[in-house]
């Protein structure tokens, strides 16, 4: 076998991952990806081992619901044939491997730095001298935006090449938010510190990333979470989706200058995040999810409160949506704006909303269920136009769907286990993977422990890692004035990308 097949949230001995020659590794993984549209790569990364770099490739199969893991060794300074030449989705993975470990690729189109991490190989490359794609033309002009943007938003630089008002090309340069999180996971030895780090990967997906971390950690420790823990995590994931989607609809209205929609959706988000505060004391649900325990059990009282919150939310939300989605001046801004074709979605390897916006049904809740998702008959909402309208509509429909799931969940509150065993130490020499469908899409955390059971490597992939390229493609041939609405309709993470 060229790979080992594992389930989501499995942990396996590191030695059980097959080590292939690079050529075989390349050929067999490419074969799996190019011949099966049900397969996509959820993570591909390297870590140093005895002077070499071990590359680990994790390919998720949507129809067999497993993750196929394989590995190979490569040597810094040597050039290898790339995945990217065959599959664009590997473009960023290989740039990252090049940036961190000095592995070269003979046929990669452009090995630009990904995030200027502090532990990169080449410190002469700095974020201030990023090599943008340039033009020498008297007809075209360039527009630079950022890193600091006009609103209260994270930093990143957008470089447009325009023909008059029309965007021909957009390049998105990130890395400003790099805080060295993956290395801190190794440096901080205490579980609460690591959980706090997971909560800080991106503050808009606290439940998503923290659930990925605790599921992975419990798997490493051989801890089977009780039903009440899984219940809280599932419910919180859906509630986070409702909150952020509502806020995004507000942002979308702001960007088409529709004040009423902006205000109404903005204020509708408030009771949802205030509910998180009632549950755990924090509006963005920091401190809610913990490995091996919960400090805030979900009670009957909380269920009653949430029912009331939804009762008040739904009529106002539906009324506002009904108006927004039939208003010609809004629709003319949404429809056919920021289109990404299905072919491009597949090529780029986008996940979550940015995949389901155009025919690609990629949803971990369905294909690799974790927590209580195996009990939810989840039907992902899939659109077929890949434009702003599709992305806005998906939010509207996913909110309705999530509220439905939460209501069903609350019909059977699990008993709180008051006698939970303590977490054991993590297993030694082990590889573990955890996939979670956050509101933005698929989150992947991978960990490797050493012979003492200490974390040796930690790898995080936020859905934004791939999805940023979809935004760059979406705005081509659009007017530059439509950039804000396209950007907001994706709502991608800077800190989740930069780590």
């Amino acid at each position: 076998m060229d790979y080992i097949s594992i389930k989501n949230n499995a942990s396996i001995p590191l030695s059980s991952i097959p080590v292939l020659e690079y050529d075989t590794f390349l050929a067999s993984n490419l074969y799996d990806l190019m011949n099966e549209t049900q397969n996509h790569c959820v993570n591909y990364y390297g870590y140093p081992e005895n002077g070499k770099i071990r590359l680990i490739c994790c390919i998720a199969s949507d129809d067999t619901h497993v993750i196929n893991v394989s590995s190979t060794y490569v040597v810094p300074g040597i050039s290898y044939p790339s995945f990217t030449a065959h599959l664009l989705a590997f473009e960023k993975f290989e740039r990252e491997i090049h940036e961190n470990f000095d592995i070269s690729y003979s046929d990669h189109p452009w090995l630009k730095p990904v995030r200027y991490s502090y532990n990169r190989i080449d410190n002469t490359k700095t974020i201030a001298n990023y090599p943008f794609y340039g033009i020498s033309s008297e007809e075209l002009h360039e527009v630079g935006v950022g890193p600091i943007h006009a609103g209260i938003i994270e930093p990143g630089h957008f470089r447009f090449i325009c023909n008059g008002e029309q965007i021909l090309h957009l390049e998105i340069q990130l890395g400003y938010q790099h805080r060295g999180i993956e290395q801190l996971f190794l440096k901080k030895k205490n579980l609460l510190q690591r959980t706090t780090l997971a909560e800080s990967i991106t503050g808009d997906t606290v439940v998503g990333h923290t659930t990925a971390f605790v599921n992975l950690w419990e798997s490493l420790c051989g801890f089977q979470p009780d039903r009440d823990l899984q219940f809280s995590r599932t419910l919180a994931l859906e509630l986070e989706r409702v909150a952020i989607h509502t806020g995004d609809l507000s942002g979308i209205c702001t960007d088409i200058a529709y004040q009423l929609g902006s205000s109404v959706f903005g204020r509708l988000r408030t009771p949802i995040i205030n509910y998180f505060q009632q549950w755990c004391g924090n509006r963005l649900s920091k401190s809610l999810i913990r490995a091996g325990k919960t400090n805030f059990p979900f009670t009957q009282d909380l269920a009653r409160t949430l029912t009331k919150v939804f009762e008040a939310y739904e009529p106002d939300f539906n009324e506002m949506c009904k108006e927004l989605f039939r208003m010609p001046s809004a629709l003319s801004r949404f429809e056919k704006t920021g289109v990404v074709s299905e072919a491009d979605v597949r090529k780029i390897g986008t996940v979550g909303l940015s995949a389901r916006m155009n025919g690609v049904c990629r949803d971990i809740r369905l294909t690799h269920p974790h927590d209580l998702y195996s009990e939810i008959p989840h039907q992902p909402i899939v659109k077929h136009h890949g434009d702003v309208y599709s992305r806005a509509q998906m939010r509207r429909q996913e909110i309705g769907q999530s509220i439905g799931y939460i209501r069903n969940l609350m019909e059977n509150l699990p008993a709180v286990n008051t006698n939970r065993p303590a977490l054991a130490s993590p297993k030694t020499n082990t590889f573990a993977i955890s996939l979670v469908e956050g509101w933005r899409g698929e989150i992947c955390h991978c960990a490797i422990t050493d012979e003492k059971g200490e974390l040796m490597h930690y790898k995080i992939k936020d859905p934004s890692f791939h999805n940023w390229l979809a935004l760059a493609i979406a705005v081509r041939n659009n007017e530059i004035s439509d950039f804000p609405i396209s950007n907001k309709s994706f709502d991608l993470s800077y800190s989740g990308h930069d780590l």
Partner: protein
Amino acid sequence: MLNNLKILYHQGKQYIPDVTKVNVPGIFRGRPIITKAQVDEEKLINICPTGAITASPIFIDLGCCTFCGECAIAFPDKIRFTTDYKIATNDRNALIVQQGQDFPIELNPKLIRKEIHEMFNGSLKLRQVSAGGDNSCELELNACSNVNFDMGRFGIEFVASPRHADGIVITGPITENMAEPLQICYDATPDPKIIILAGVDAISGGIFADSPALNRTFLKRNKIDLYVPGNPIHPLTFINGVLSLIRERKG
């Protein structure tokens, strides 16, 4: 048009009438109270993920605290978080809460520069810079201006350009890659100008304090006018802090 009016009517009253007196819903963790109960201090200190607790006697530094509440869960007789959200101050030392202390955290009027009171009392325009912020404080700063908290009614607004601003609000632990853009933004803001640090990451680096990916030299070079603790900050903490800053200087 009629539909829009109907929707408007259905919203009812959404704004908080008095943001200085309102109670926060739920179990919000604001200013802590530390009792004199005897506990295993070493165990208590080791719980804290960011080293915000120091011993003999016990102090909690709200500039380092992530408000995770784990210390209060483990030692409920020793530490209790109240719902007092007015925890912003201009005095870094006032963020350090001592055992037995139970009085509000306030601004030190003597530390407020004269020009802040004179120039910004009725109107304050701020430029926000996220320098490694995780987007949680950014979301809450946005919420300050929504129809619920409606900070704009006090003349406090966020603006797009530093050249239109009276000061900057920094979130995040200040990454190496954002150090230069932050300085450029600050330099572009006309004098007199203020600096506000929003959130634990900005005030002390938080969980990232010892990360080699940071460059916090900006904070050593400049005077900070307001510290707003929280992880993330609560909009009410921010609004009350800024209101005190522009209103409370005496004499």
